[in-house]
């Protein structure tokens, strides 16, 4: 059944000769255009919107899920998905604070903890990657399971109590500023630049796209498909670990029950809004950055305009639907 549909899609794609050069059509810039329109509307609707403090705030809010969305972009382009990132963030957060409190005070402890966070995140990604490649479990199911496992381990380890850092300098990482921008924002943008280079300008990135587009073609082109898929999950894991550092150092604590709650939704939404195909095979990092910022602005505007916070989920859901519908329309 799905095969027949795929064939149909292929056939229509193949024979719809009218838009012969899709690379340069306006559709590829849809996220950017949407962002510009959104900024203009927001600026007109609220005088507070363009104030530097507000903008800085939006960017900071965005950076936690945005960092994860960067890694998620690789996973989705390679044809996967990861639902465990929110729970993974909580787990890494709790472990890092435990480690920090064990190591004692000072910057050295903080640096070790940050390294450990990246490593722990990479391990959680490696578990997801191994389940999908070696275990041949559909990523949706595998990461649904690890989502539950990671969260439960987080609660068990912390005894469901808030974990507070006793390190006196740790909070400077997440609350610090550099050139008037918060540290998490710098990390987000820096990782975005790195991710862009990796995706667009290295053999690895090319292979990720090939695997997501057609794994059989990739394996018939001497690409190690399993290794590529595994690596995308590890990359995502590292971003989850770094995001955990940013979030826990900002609050100087982690609450195991709700840290990272629904982060998977925001991260996947940012990727999709950014124009990356959920079918895999194509997507961009800059699109994801814009997608994350769009989500942040929408949240911010709903706040500024006094819309009930309970309705924010509805708006977010609608934006995702619109983004996906636009993608399908473009592909047809």
């Amino acid at each position: 059944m799905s095969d027949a549909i795929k064939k149909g899609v292929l056939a229509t794609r193949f024979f719809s000769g009218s838009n012969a050069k899709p690379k340069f059509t306006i559709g590829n810039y849809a996220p950017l255009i949407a962002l510009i329109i959104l900024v203009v509307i927001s600026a007109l609707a609220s005088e507070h919107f363009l104030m530097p403090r507000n903008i800085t705030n939006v960017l900071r809010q965005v950076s936690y899920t945005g960092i994860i969305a960067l890694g998620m972009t690789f996973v989705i382009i390679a044809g996967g998905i990861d639902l465990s990132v929110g729970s993974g963030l909580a787990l890494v957060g709790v472990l890092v604070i435990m480690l920090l409190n064990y190591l004692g005070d000072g910057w050295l402890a903080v640096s070790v903890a940050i390294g450990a966070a990246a490593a722990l995140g990479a391990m959680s990604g490696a578990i997801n990657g191994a389940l999908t490649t070696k275990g041949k479990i559909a990523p949706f199911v595998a990461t649904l399971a690890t989502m539950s496992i990671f969260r439960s381990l987080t609660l068990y380890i912390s005894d469901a109590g808030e974990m507070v850092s006793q390190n006196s300098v740790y909070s400077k990482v997440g609350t610090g500023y550099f050139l008037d921008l918060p540290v998490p924002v710098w990390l987000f943008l820096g990782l975005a630049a790195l991710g862009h280079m990796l995706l667009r300008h290295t053999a690895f990135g090319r292979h990720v796209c090939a695997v997501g587009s057609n794994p059989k073609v990739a394996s018939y082109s001497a690409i190690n498909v399993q290794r590529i898929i595994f690596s995308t999950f590890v990359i995502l894991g590292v971003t989850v670990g770094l995001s955990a550092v940013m979030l826990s150092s900002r609050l100087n604590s982690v609450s195991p029950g709700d840290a990272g709650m629904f982060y998977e939704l925001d991260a996947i939404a940012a990727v999709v809004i950014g124009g990356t195909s959920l079918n895999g095979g194509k997507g961009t990092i800059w699109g994801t950055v814009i997608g994350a910022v769009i989500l942040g602005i929408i949240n911010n505007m709903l706040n500024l305009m006094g819309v009930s916070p309970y309705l924010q989920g509805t708006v977010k859901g609608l934006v995702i639907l619109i983004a996906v519908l636009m993608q399908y329309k473009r592909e047809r």
Partner: protein
Amino acid sequence: MTSVQRPTLLRLESIRKSFSGVTVLHGINAEIEQGEVLGILGENGAGKSTLLKIVSGIYSLSDGALHLDGEPVTIGSPGDAKRLGIAMIPQEFNLIASLNVFENIFLGHELKRGSLLDKAAMRQRTHDLLQLLETELDPDSLVEDLSVAEKQMVEIAKALVHDARILIMDEPTTVLTKKEVEVLFALIAKLKAQGVTILFISHKLKEVKQLCDRLMILRDGQLVSMDEVAHLSEHDMATKMVGRELNQIFPERSQPLDEWALEVSGLSIRSQLHDISFGVRKGEVLGFAGLVGSGRTETMEALMGLRRSDSGQVKVFGKPVKIRKLRQAVELGLAYLSEDRQGAGLVMNFDLPENISLISLKRYSRGLINHQQTRKQAQDYVQRFSIKAPSLGSELQYLSGGNQQKVYLSKWMDTDPKILILDEPTRGVDVNTKKDIYHFIQSLTEQGMAVIVISSEMEELIGLAHRVMVMREGRLQGELSGEQINEQQIMLLAAGLGPQQRETA
């Protein structure tokens, strides 16, 4: 067969079809009569399949009209065609392996009693139908347990259960043994007697001569002729199909060298391949013939490390090697173009440079990819193979089959191969590109490249190969060389008879 006056059933009126601006059918006019067996002949790319896909609703026509029983009809989908009594038996069967025969036959049109399936009725109707077809198939057998011929029978039954008046068969005999072909022909005669019209695509001239009443010959998307078969000799058919002498398409063969490029011995995969041994010299073209499913592709995939083999030794330029992964094969100078260009060959949403450099990417990247260099290299291939594409940045999905094949060839040439394996290199490719590919193969052998060509088109092997290995059911059936390479010898071996045995037809 004498000519009988039959009523016109389906009239094609200036049918045109183009894909991405390339016209593949140039206004076909024809009248198909009720109860006839109409053979449709033409080379690959002549437009046979396209025409029949229009009639069966898979493609929509770009221009023109169809009249059934004198009434204009629109066939926008296979569902429309089914309602009008037009059914197609595809080359690749559309059966679900895990369901049994009657479930497949009624798939999507299940008989029901209330809201539950009426299995008894479906079983009974299937039984009746299979009896009518004079087969001993059990309605309850699982499709995955059936032979190819039996699966074909199920497809035919599936078409007939919806009271098909026009039955389209796309090269039904390529996958059958001689005996099975006889059964099929008897069945076609029976259906014809019941007034069913059969459209029969084939490129086996003898078969067409024996079976059909009339013959439609297509060349390069044009209707060349529509004649009573009785008025045509096989030679006439060939000339009309090709429109020129075959020797113009195939270049002179070059002289192979003595040195072995590749030697394979005892290659086996349990229950698939049995003790396959062959070798190819530098500058030689080794052909692989056999029916679909005879193990040719499996042999090459096992050799390339794309499939695990249970035993076998491989020597590349005299040196014993172990190939477990495709990457190792590439490093040894082997290249393999799969028969499945779109499914295994090219990334359809990548552009030309991205596709061409996909295997050889290491050469273009020191950390970061040198995009300029990949574009330049792609530009060279575009010129060398005269690839027609809107631009270098066009995604492959917007190129024609022939141009895609040239990009696929470029992709593997970019790995600097010494031994080139081509699996059905001209499938779905137009005549001119075919000629380009043949000449290219020739120029490679001239430079000492060893080339293996798997092909189901015999004229291709006859025109290109120095030697031909014939496979059947996972075994090498024999080797032909020189004058022995002809259609008859290949068919005899492929059908499981020794070459020395006398022809029966």
